[in-house]
């Protein structure tokens, strides 16, 4: 029965403006990251922190654009999800949906899965575009791409895309939760971005150890397959626990709350 809200939500998701805007934004972010990384690659290790051309030529070089755009993709995903859910309150359409599907948890879960599938699709489409851009840029910079198309290279790309998909789903879930709880697209997006970007940065600047507990940093760690601060498994477990708790609270609040909009 979750399939009904899932299919229903997809009617809204397939509108051209949203489709082109979201898929275009996500592909644009990934391609831009790839172009900047390959264009900025140096011949030898320097103080800039940029990748070297030798590093790029390794099997994992193709995934640089995907793994390097975590925060931007997270921000886009959070915004799309918050706008979809907050918009139902803003448009006043939530009441129509609840008359046709009064099982509120089912409605939210079905709609949420549809949005996640939309965002994962956008990441997959962006990856395809990014591969083309990466090969063009590699050719321009004279980077050897033989390792990219090897089994290891494809495997690394698959893992990177998978990790990124998990991370953007996490950001999207945060957007959905904020959209439902705050009942406004604008406030939800502003709050989400403010907390995940500057607020978390302030915390980690003050106390670096907090990075292993803050959701934005944990999602970033998941997207990058683990960082020096938080390993992949630890980050995934911790952020999953956060999100599971937040989803449970949101479903409870939404199920009991009067619909006044």
């Amino acid at each position, binding site marked *: 029965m979750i399939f009904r809200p899932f299919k229903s939500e997809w009617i809204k998701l397939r509108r051209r403006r949203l489709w082109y805007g979201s898929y275009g934004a996500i592909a644009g972010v990934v391609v831009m990251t790839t172009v900047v990384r390959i264009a900025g690659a140096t011949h030898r290790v320097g103080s800039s922190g940029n990748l070297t051309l030798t590093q790029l030529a390794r099997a994992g070089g193709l995934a640089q654009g995907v793994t390097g755009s975590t925060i931007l993709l997270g921000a886009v995903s959070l915004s799309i999800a918050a706008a979809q859910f907050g918009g139902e309150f803003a448009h006043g359409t939530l009441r129509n949906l609840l008359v*046709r599907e009064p099982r509120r948890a089912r409605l939210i879960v079905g709609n949420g899965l549809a949005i996640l599938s939309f965002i994962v699709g956008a990441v997959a489409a962006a990856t395809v575009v990014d591969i083309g851009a990466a090969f063009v840029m590699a050719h321009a910079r004279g980077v050897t791409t033989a390792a990219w198309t090897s089994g290891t290279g494809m495997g690394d790309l698959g893992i990177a895309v998978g990790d990124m998909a998990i991370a953007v789903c996490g950001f999207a879930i945060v957007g959905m939760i904020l959209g439902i709880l705050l009942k406004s697209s604008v406030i939800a997006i502003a709050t989400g971005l403010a907390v995940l970007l500057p607020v978390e940065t302030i915390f980690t600047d003050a106390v670096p150890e907090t990075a292993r507990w803050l959701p934005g940093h944990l999602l970033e760690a998941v997207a990058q397959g683990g960082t020096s601060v938080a390993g992949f498994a630890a980050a995934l477990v911790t952020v999953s626990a956060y999100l599971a708790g937040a989803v449970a609270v949101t479903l409870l609040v939404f199920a009991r709350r009067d619909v006044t909009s």
Partner: protein
Amino acid sequence: MPLLAHASCGPRMPESCAVVTTGLTKRFGHRVAVDSLDLAIPEGSISGFVGPNGAGKTTTIRMLLGLMRPTAGSGTVLGYPLSQYKSYLAKVGALIEGPTFHPALSGWDNLAVLARLGGIASARIAEVLDRVGLGDRGHDPTRTYSLGMRQRLGIAAAMLPDPALLVLDEPTNGLDPHGIAEIRAMLRSFADEGRTVFVSSHLLTEIQQVCEHLVVIEGGHLVFQGSVAQLLASRAPELAVRTESPDDVDRLVALVRRHGHAATVSGRGAEATVTVSASCGWAGELNRLAMAEGMTLVHIAERHSTLEEAFFEITGSCTEESRERRTQAVHTETSDPPKVEEHTR
């Protein structure tokens, strides 16, 4: 202040009720939006739901639709308890607080969102769009729709599940007279198909024209429930009288008052009309009395109350005494007296 109201499905109504509530109450903090509301909406009727702004109409509708949790009270909709709204909503169509749609989606897609959600066949979308006269505009974005078209699309959305009960909150808001007449005809056709239509509106003339049953609430309280005819009949009878000479108006008023009836004057000069609180049975006597005093009456007519007048009386300026009189009139003028319940404000 006690008020009397009719709270059964009515003597000439079907025995069963589509909606029944007992003591339905909704509080927001210290504010009571709906207070011990006892509704009984006859099945198959068009029932009007009227009250001033903030009277609690929309809150009541939201409670019936499972969108708000009642603070107290109970009830049934289509035979199911209010708490089991998930069971009855599949048979209920609703337009709540005006039509709301995704502006970028077409009318067809907006309905498809609801149809897929409710497990309703897509073929039904074309049927309801045709029914409300939007068949040729169904694929246009709703942001290009006029208010009237959006209202009709809202009614189409409500009709999607082929409902036994239609709950329409202000379906004629913002419409021109032509649009209002269209909605009125639509409501009538829905009732002719055996559906129960529960419609709230500020347009009392429209309610009077299309509804056979009426619920009036004010400040969250029920102030009247019964047939429109009963409400109008409960008003004190009046005669509208004109004299041939405008100079006789004051003398006529004095004459009427001398004989124990109230009289008021509206209009001036040749247009002056004396409204006399008396039934048409006293018209002949009045004519004779006026003639005996040398006055010629050129117009004596029973004056029928409008729903608007009755509404203002029971929700606004009416006194305890007039309420008592109205209730007594209901008892004496209807052949089958309604059940009367007492409500405390």
